[in-house]
């Protein structure tokens, strides 16, 4: 592969030496910067509080306190909060997937006459980040217009607003746009209704885009903090991200680090499994994650 440094550059000893040292420094920097804090957190999660406070630079604990993880799980109820997170993330994922696929299908394939207006109104919301409508959102979940429901302290207060994601609809619609229309029309001629086309033709073909949207939404939902904090004020129902700052004020520091580590494991594992797709997705969609 040629690029910035060309093949003939690489034959010159002086440049090879310089390039080699730059790359070695780069590797060191990236390991320290990228993996370092996470490895420190892993080490800290099995280190005693006194040792953490007095020897934070130690590479390994003198005697690993594996019980930290178990204590954090039970005493700090990390397991309980983790379950709450999973419920919120799972529901948000499902709602986003339903809205993006049905909406994308209607706008791309069915194309009713009012579709272009709806699409325009959806795209317009890209200009207004959800953070600036926070108070009005809160009023909405406090007293759902027409229905009069109060969603505060229910998972739905996090699930439903997550669905109003214009970017998902944009991604899915563009993917559906690229499927040849002959396919739908042939199915229509064969007597397939709109629902059959959606269920039997469009959805089975859209695994790649559904995977991209799923990774984006799951990783994104796992990171949420401000909205879940407002929407779910009952401590027993809060997700881990909201509970951690509260626990940080009162708990044993070693257990807290163990809690932080446990909270990081699920997204880290998902990332390491799907890293190729996620990295390609970041470069491709321009979503920084």
């Amino acid at each position: 592969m040629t690029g910035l440094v060309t093949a003939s550059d690489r034959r010159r000893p002086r440049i090879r030496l310089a390039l080699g040292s730059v790359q070695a420094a780069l590797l060191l920097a990236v390991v320290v910067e990228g993996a370092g804090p996470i490895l420190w957190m892993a080490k800290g999660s099995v280190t005693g509080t006194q040792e953490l406070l007095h020897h934070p630079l130690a590479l390994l604990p003198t005697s690993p306190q594996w019980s930290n993880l178990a204590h954090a799980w039970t005493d700090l109820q990390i397991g309980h909060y983790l379950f709450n997170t999973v419920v919120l993330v799972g529901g948000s994922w499902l709602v986003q997937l339903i809205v993006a696929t049905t909406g994308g299908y209607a706008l791309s394939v069915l194309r009713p006459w009012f579709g272009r207006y709806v699409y325009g109104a959806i795209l317009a919301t890209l200009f207004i980040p959800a953070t600036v409508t926070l108070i009005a959102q809160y009023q909405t979940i406090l007293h759902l217009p027409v229905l009069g429901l109060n969603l505060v302290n229910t998972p739905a207060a996090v699930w439903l607003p997550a669905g109003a994601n214009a970017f998902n609809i944009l991604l899915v619609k563009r993917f559906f746009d690229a499927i040849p229309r002959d396919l739908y029309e042939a199915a229509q001629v064969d007597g397939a209704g709109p629902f059959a086309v959606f269920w039997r033709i469009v959805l089975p073909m859209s695994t790649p885009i559904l995977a991209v949207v799923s990774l984006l939404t799951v990783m994104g939902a796992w990171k949420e903090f401000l909205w879940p904090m407002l929407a779910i004020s009952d401590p027993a129902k809060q997700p881990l991200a909201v509970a951690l700052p509260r626990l940080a004020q009162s708990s044993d520091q070693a257990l807290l680090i163990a809690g932080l580590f446990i909270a990081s494991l699920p997204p880290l594992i998902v990332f390491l499994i799907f890293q190729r797709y996620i990295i390609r997705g970041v470069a491709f969609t321009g979503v920084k994650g």
Partner: protein
Amino acid sequence: MTTDVRPERVGAPAPAAPRRRFRKVSQRNTVAGLVFLLPTLLIFLYFSWGPIVRSLVMSLQHTNLIGPARWVGLTNFTDLFDDPMLFTAVRNSVWFALLALVIGFPVPLLLAVAMSTLRRLGGLFRVLVYLPVVLPPVVSVLLWKWFYDPDSGLFNQALHVVGLGPYPWLQSGTWAMPSLVLEATWAGAGGTVLIYLAALTSVPAELYEAAELDGASIRRRVWHIALPQLRGIILIMLLLQVIGTLQVFTEPYVMTDGGPNDSTVTVLLLIYRYAFIDGNFGMATALSVLLAVVLAGLSVVYLRATRRWSS
């Protein structure tokens, strides 16, 4: 307006019988389209379009969200401008955004240029660089709060080894904000690196080869070829970064709670305090509306930039 003219059909000779069938199909598409759009319409009405309109309304009202609201005209806005905290918060947010540009803008670019010269292990480097982005922001912030601890924190202990410090990372009004920016840069740089890297690999190799024949050194090739080729994506990332940093909340809320001496009270933190500490929802939405105007303006510039540079 029920005739559904599809681009492929325009100009194609359409016999009479199929046309009738297509009209039926298009009517059916109107009904089916409405059914399939129902989840989208409901969700966006309740949680996107509705709240946008409601924000505008609420910024002109006094309300406690439960009882009936009272129209007060522009009182919320005048109250806002009478509050010295507004000036502090705006100044802090702009300061955060500026520091984030100074610290967080050159680093990813340099990393991406260096990574683009790798012939092996590129995948490993990408994973390592992106690792911090994967962590939940709250975890990163709490972890760094621990690193910043004046006595037992990792940073002061490490600096102590080489004879520096101790530094009051989060305890001084001067250094608290740069410390927050450092953490935010660490947490967010990985995504930017990957985007720059993708853009760098699409720079045609012939450009570099031609420059080399003309005797341009590697440094000159970075400066005169790679960076100019990247200027579109650089502008886009700059705008995205400013849009993001103007909405910063988790860092100041969890790490410093706005302190010391209000030196890290950002606009979003002030909105949160107006609403959920003071119970002044009118003033909170008034400030949200002002923030929305600024962000929407930046988004329009962003959209123009992406249109121009992606075509």
